[in-house]
């Protein structure tokens, strides 16, 4: 484990020196500031309209919708971070001659890959969890609404980006950095589209669309985890407010059963095995 830690620390130090974290930090603060401004403005407008006379709780609808939107943004930012920290980790670094000096040390290829993954996954998972919690606090501060569940959505998002980091790292074994980056973003996009199709299918009671979304959730479990995280925000909300939320863009998200969480962990393991086997056979 010492060598894994050495590689992970060196990887993190590189991101620090290259000011990756500084740039991400500044832009995240800007994102949260804009989110705060929008949240404050929307809650003020809603209160002026007086939605609560219709029997629904406007702060819940606005809070859940905005936090769902923030969750989408957080997931996207976390994915960007995961992809850029890993897209050239193997083939890219090997082509530049950075990898070979490390691989002739008494360290297995598995150790090197685990070190790179540990660094990327830890940073991305911590990042999305922290941004999600910050957005939640902002929503509560300006709108007085707190989600029904906080921990599970945060863990769901963290696991989703950890899976994307693993997919990107595995892709770096087989693809050049550019091809890998494009591939992972397209997979990410495909997952999001499948999730949206599922929500539309749920709203229109279309069995075909729901099936497509379900299959996509199993093939790309990060999407299923994201949907589960969204669903967790208003899992205990009922009545007219529930109906109103369902009409919104994030209202039809599907909650995941324990099977998805288990599958997500198995999927992570399978991606890891593919990456390790591919790396072990690769001539450098």
């Amino acid at each position: 484990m010492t060598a894994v830690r050495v590689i992970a620390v060196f990887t993190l130090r590189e991101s620090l020196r290259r000011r990756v974290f500084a740039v991400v930090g500044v832009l995240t603060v800007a994102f949260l500031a804009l989110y705060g401004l929008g949240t404050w403005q929307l809650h003020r407008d809603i209160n002026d309209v007086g939605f609560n006379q219709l029997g629904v709780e406007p702060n819940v609808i606005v809070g859940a919708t905005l936090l769902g939107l923030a969750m989408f943004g957080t997931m996207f930012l976390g994915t960007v971070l995961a992809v850029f920290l890993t897209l050239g980790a193997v083939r890219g670094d090997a082509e530049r001659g950075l990898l070979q000096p490390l691989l002739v040390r008494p360290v297995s290829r598995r150790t090197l890959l685990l070190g790179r993954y540990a660094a990327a996954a830890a940073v991305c998972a911590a990042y999305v969890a922290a941004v999600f919690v910050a957005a939640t606090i902002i929503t509560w501060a300006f709108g007085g609404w707190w989600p029904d569940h906080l921990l599970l959505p945060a863990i769901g998002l963290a696991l989703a980006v950890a899976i994307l980091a693993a997919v990107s790292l595995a892709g770096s074994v087989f693809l050049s950095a550019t091809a890998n980056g494009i591939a992972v973003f397209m997979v990410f996009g495909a997952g999001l589209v499948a999730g949206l199709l599922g929500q539309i299918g749920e709203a229109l009671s279309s069995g075909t669309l729901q099936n497509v979304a379900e299959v996509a959730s199993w093939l790309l479990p990060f999407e299923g985890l994201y949907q589960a995280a969204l669903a967790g925000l208003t899992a205990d909300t009922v009545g007219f407010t529930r109906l109103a939320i369902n009409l919104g863009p994030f209202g039809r998200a599907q909650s995941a059963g324990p099977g998805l969480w288990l599958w997500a962990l198995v999927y992570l393991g399978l991606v890891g095995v593919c990456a390790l086997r591919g790396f072990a056979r690769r001539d450098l």
Partner: protein
Amino acid sequence: MVCLVPAALSVSALVKTYGSVHALVGVDLEVGEGELVGLLGPNGAGKSTVVKVACGLVTPTSGRAEVCGEPAGSVAAHRSLGYLAELFRFPDWCTAHELLELHQRLAESEGGAVERAELLELVGLPDAGETRVGTMSKGMQQRLGIAQALIGSPRLLLLDEPTSALDPSGRRTVRALLEELRGRGVAVLLNSHLLSEVELVCDRVAIIDHGALVAAGTPAELSHAGGVEVETAGGTRVFAAARRDDAPGIVRELVAAGEEVYGVRVLTSSLEDAYLEAVGGS
């Protein structure tokens, strides 16, 4: 008597194919403890592939490669190995000390700051510890690469074109370093295009062409005799089949025949001639 100490590098019947390309077609090579062996060959001959197989960076199609008795590519083999790739790069954001420290940790070297300072001194970069790699010249990076390869006192050093970016003074530093390493008992496989350099420092030379070993021996063995040249009043005469020992007899015969001899020169082919002969060049 059986030698119990395994060779620093032992390669036998090594074959490597990339699709339809035969990079190595059965190479046998051995580098003994403390021996300095030069690996020569034209571009694409398979020199770097041999080195990469020894490092475990490339898996052979068949054959065997061992480093100090351990299978090439194993963690145990890597403990005895230092390597400088032909096309290497170090992270440009870190300093020389940080880079060496990373390799010390991975190599489980306990040399600490003393080892780092000693190695930088050895490669002629005593004041570069806090210099960022990105601001170093290519030559400085190559010296740093050699220092990196020496972390943990390896028993076998694999150097793939270690002087390609160095100026004459840098090359001299590396030559002196190689001689010092030989004194310390470190075995070196030096892959180089610079024949003069190989001739100057190597105990043995192996020449590879089209993936096969085509010649091997000491530089003196490979630089075989090429006749005797005698300068007489009637012009220069070459006795192509004659060797050094034949020179006095030739002179005696010429004098006896009434020739006036002004000079005698024993001809030997250079390593370059031997190399070109081995690889079929002109």
